[in-house]
């Protein structure tokens, strides 16, 4: 065999060896990729299965909470009246009255009364729930003190003319809490020994 033929044979063998090495290595890498993708598919399947009921559950929770919000807003407005309800919310959460109630869009336009007026009415309402309330009819101490059908008459007698005429002109109640516009510094002498007067 001539030398050129031998060189040709060696070159072909080298090419085939290169093909074998790289193709086998590529096959190994692709098998590793396929194994990884199998794990991914299994995990994604678990994610899909675990998250499948989430939408229905969250929708149900939101529906229940929406119903509760509607009921509580309706009860508050029904019992306290729109103005006092807005005032109560404003007193508890300063600035919240501007947003109004969700089911009462007109509540955002209500000017909230001073919180003192709302609390006064609330205190009277709580007082009516005591000895004079209809629920006290079973009180062993005796008969109820008020007429059940006109339970709020006694409280109304305290303010026969309704809201004070000058109430809107009174200054607003101070806002307290961490979000208050005026923050008062804590006294440094609190908790320390009392200062003593020097003896003459």
């Amino acid at each position, binding site marked *: 065999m001539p030398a050129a033929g031998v060189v040709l044979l060696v070159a072909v063998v080298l090419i085939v060896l290169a093909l074998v090495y790289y193709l086998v290595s590529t096959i190994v890498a692709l098998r590793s990729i396929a194994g990884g993708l199998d794990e991914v598919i299994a995990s994604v399947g678990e994610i899909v299965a*675990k998250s499948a009921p989430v939408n229905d559950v969250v929708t149900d929770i939101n529906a229940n909470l929406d119903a509760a919000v509607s009921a509580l807003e309706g009860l508050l407005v029904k*019992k306290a009246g729109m103005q006092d309800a807005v005032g109560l919310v404003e007193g508890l959460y300063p600035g919240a009255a501007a947003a109004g109630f969700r089911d009462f869009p007109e509540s955002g336009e209500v000017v909230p009364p001073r919180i003192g007026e709302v609390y006064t009415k609330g205190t009277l309402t709580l007082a009516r729930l005591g000895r004079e309330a209809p629920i006290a009819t079973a009180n062993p101490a005796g008969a109820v003190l008020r007429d059940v059908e006109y339970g709020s008459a006694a409280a109304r007698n305290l303010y026969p003319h309704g809201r004070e005429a000058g109430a809107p002109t009174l200054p607003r109640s101070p806002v307290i809490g961490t979000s208050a516009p005026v923050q008062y510094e804590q006294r440094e002498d609190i908790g320390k020994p009392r200062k003593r007067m020097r003896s003459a």
Partner: protein
Amino acid sequence: MTLWWIGDAVLVLGVLPVVVYLLNGVLSEARSIVPSVQRIARTAAAGSKDLDAAALLLTTQEQVRQTVAGVADYGGSLDAIVDDAEEA
């Protein structure tokens, strides 16, 4: 004979380097995908594990129902006890 040598030279100096270059490129790209796929698999497994708590939503759903039912009962009692607001 000269043509044989020319063919050998083309095969050794031209075809063989091109084959090696191309196959090496394919192999390096295939190997570079492996770590990415492994990271994706670990992330998907971690995401699946995080969703184990999703089953607790059923408990939350039931508790919300019971709470709302309690609030409704309490509100109904208040509606019966407390007088309505006076008409303006």
